[in-house]
């Protein structure tokens, strides 16, 4: 029996990128292995569910929980690991705020199943089978775990002690967190760790000139100038509304920040933060003497170039956002990105 503190890593609805980020600590991984007892391996969870159940409560020192909650089974594992862990960490964007899997919350579970199994370009499904429930074979039954109605993040089910942002968290930041854990000098419960307290703009070496912009542009439309702020060139770079800690690698590659580290410190809604930031950078021209309708028309014209603000601004945070879950019927104006349209008559435009 190892005397070292027990470390568990579990994945729910996720891609495995968080695990690869751990592996990409490279030789540091050996230090981690020397200091901690990895008693629980991420992908092979269920096999040892019974082993975890058999542990005394709080037997695991730290659990790094990655992945969103998509199935009932994910939820059960979240509760089990909460009970067995002294420290439960929402590790990575999926566990922290839903991430890409939570984009499914724009519509419904029924739409999702239909797109995959019925209204799909390569399925041959004459009997319109949708996988679900219990299937009877001559020899016995097979049960399929049900999907939840909407994707949740970890703290929507259980109490979370710490949050590590990023899709995935950068490997050097994971190492920082492990050093912190080993030092025993843990920050206040509920803290977001393994990151900075500013925005990606603070890490980005592009030059900001407090320019205002006359149009939003899509990333394929032009080759951005290599030294200037991407937002000030009209790209919807999320750096201004995103927590730092990644080192701004995307803007170094001439691509806008997509926001994977989530909202900055003290901000609960990343998309709302981005909208607020845009208000101060949009230049709709001189509005002196214009009617309210005319001004609204200019704003509409400005906003029209981008057809999916919701998907851009809440790409990683839909499950935790004030937009919440699948409150919208399929094909609502929201998924068309017109959530910001100011004129009521545009609300139904498809």
């Amino acid at each position: 029996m190892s005397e070292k503190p027990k470390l568990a890593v579990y994945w729910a609805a996720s891609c495995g990128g968080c695990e690869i980020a751990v592996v990409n600590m490279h030789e540091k991984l050996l230090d981690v292995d020397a200091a901690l007892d990895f008693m629980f391996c991420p992908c092979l969870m269920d096999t040892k569910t019974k082993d975890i159940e058999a542990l005394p409560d709080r037997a695991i020192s730290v659990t790094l929980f990655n992945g969103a909650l998509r199935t009932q089974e994910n939820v059960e594992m979240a509760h089990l690991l909460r009970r067995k862990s002294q420290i439960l960490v929402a590790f990575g964007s999926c566990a922290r705020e839903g991430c890409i899997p939570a984009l499914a919350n724009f519509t419904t579970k029924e739409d999702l199943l239909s797109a995959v199994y019925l209204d799909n370009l390569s399925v041959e499904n004459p009997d319109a089978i949708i996988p679900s429930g219990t299937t009877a074979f001559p020899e016995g039954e097979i049960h399929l775990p049900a999907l939840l109605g909407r994707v949740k993040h970890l703290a929507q089910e259980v109490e979370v002690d710490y949050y590590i942002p990023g899709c995935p968290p950068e490997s050097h930041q994971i190492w920082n967190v492990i050093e912190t854990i080993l030092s025993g000098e843990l920050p206040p419960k509920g803290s977001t760790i393994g990151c900075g307290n500013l925005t990606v703009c603070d890490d980005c070496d592009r030059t900001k000139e407090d320019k205002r912009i006359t149009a939003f542009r899509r990333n394929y439309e032009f080759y951005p100038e290599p030294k200037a702020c991407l937002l000030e060139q009209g790209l919807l770079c999320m750096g201004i509304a995103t927590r730092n800690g990644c080192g701004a690698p995307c803007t170094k590659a001439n691509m806008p920040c997509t926001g994977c580290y989530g909202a900055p410190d003290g901000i609960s809604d990343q998309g709302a933060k981005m909208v607020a930031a845009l208000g101060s950078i949009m230049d709709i021209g001189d509005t002196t003497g214009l009617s309210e309708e005319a001004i609204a028309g200019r704003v509409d014209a400005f906003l029209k170039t981008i057809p999916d603000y919701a998907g851009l601004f809440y790409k990683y945070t839909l499950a935790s956002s004030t937009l919440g879950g699948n409150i919208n019927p399929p094909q609502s104006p929201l998924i068309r990105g017109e959530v910001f349209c100011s004129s009521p008559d545009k609300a139904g435009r498809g």
Partner: protein
Amino acid sequence: MTTRITIDPITRLEGHGRIDIFLNDQGAVENACFQIPELRGFEQFCVGRMAEEMPVITNRICGVCPEAHHIAASKALDGVFGAEPTPAAKKLRELLYMTFFVTDHTTHFYALGGPDFIVGPDAPPSERNILGVARKVGLEVAGDVIACRKRNHEIITFLGGKSIHPVAGVPGGWSRAITTEERTQIEDAARKNIEFARFSLALFEKIVLKNPAYLEMVTSDTYLHRTYSMGTVDAYNRTNFYDGLIRVVDPEGKEFVKYHPSEYREHIAERVESWTYLKYPYLKKVGWKGLTDGMESGIYTATPLSRLNVSEGLATPLANAEYQRMYETFGCKKITDARYEPIHHRMATHWARLIELLYAAERMLELALDPEITSPETRNIPDPARFAGEGIGSVEAPRGTLTHHYVTDERGVLTKVNMIVGTTNNYAPISMSIKRAAEKLITSAAPEEAVLNRIEMAFRLYDPCFSCATHFLPGKMPLTVSLRDSQGGLLREMRRKA
């Protein structure tokens, strides 16, 4: 009384996997269900998104092979926006992709699949891992594996813009050029990769091929299924991971069809079963005949081995020599000037993967030495007049042919998304291999550990996407097999702990 065996989980495609095997009164396998109990549904929630976001969104299908999704998505966008990438852009994309292939195949051989051979199929599980490999062949090997992953991930980071989930793919090209210093670093890494690949093949030779017991395991019919083989080929019908036509050969090795990836719907269909979230792809023109192999069954395989089965030799010299050696070791006859009869022994997939590792390293060096690789001309800006609104992108992912298909409205907003991913192609072959392993498990009075490992090896040879777990910490592959009666009562449980 029917006996039921449950293996839960085998993990992972998108998280988990589970097997139920049903036996009849005589103890023979009647049915085997390999269930994937999770679904995220990218086909649905990508609808409504702006198409140019897809290289970043679809990365998140798989954090082990985001590069494959990123490149396939970028190629699909070339089609949507009617923007042909510049020659340098194509080379940069392929260069990133070869770098990724080296790390991915390396990890599989040393951390996942290889330990079964290097340490041995009957070794204690605690030894069948990278640390066991280190003890068997020397501690420096573990260091070499870490160094190989590290140097290639550094290149992926600057070339793709992010170490995991790259961002540089755009319609018509690549968002950044490389500097001459970066090129030198890549050339240096590629040379080391070639040496590392040759070392790995020599290790395989020494430990597996020179050991009669292992060689017998590789060449026996325990893991043999005669399916169709699929892979992407260049203009000379040689394997290419980045681009080309999809070639399918029948179980005898005759070319069945060769098609452009954009025609995939004429050739591939997917079957839905009520008890699993994963779909079963099959060759449409042969048809679905259930989980059975042979000429009449539309089941095909898309793996390193199947890629070599469809290829007229390999395009780089060292890898081509290894290619020939593998087929001649199996006693395959040549059926064209360069190609041999297909190998259907699934265990040879491990060998084929190492040959691909060498090819990827050699191709990486070729690209690093290409004078155009440092060209600043990395993008063609799409011309709105050429906007097509539909695109299909395909690459060979490490685990099989990967296809992305997007349809958009006139604003480039997605209205329809479809993907057939690497491991999914092999759902039926993996299921068959499970059934075969189950047959062996039941008919032989094998000791428990050997039973577990044989099932595990049937999986591992495909390197299905649950591999990343074992990438994480080597050898911690806990597995439970429960034998239940028809009422669900537990008859016996075999368990191997991490």
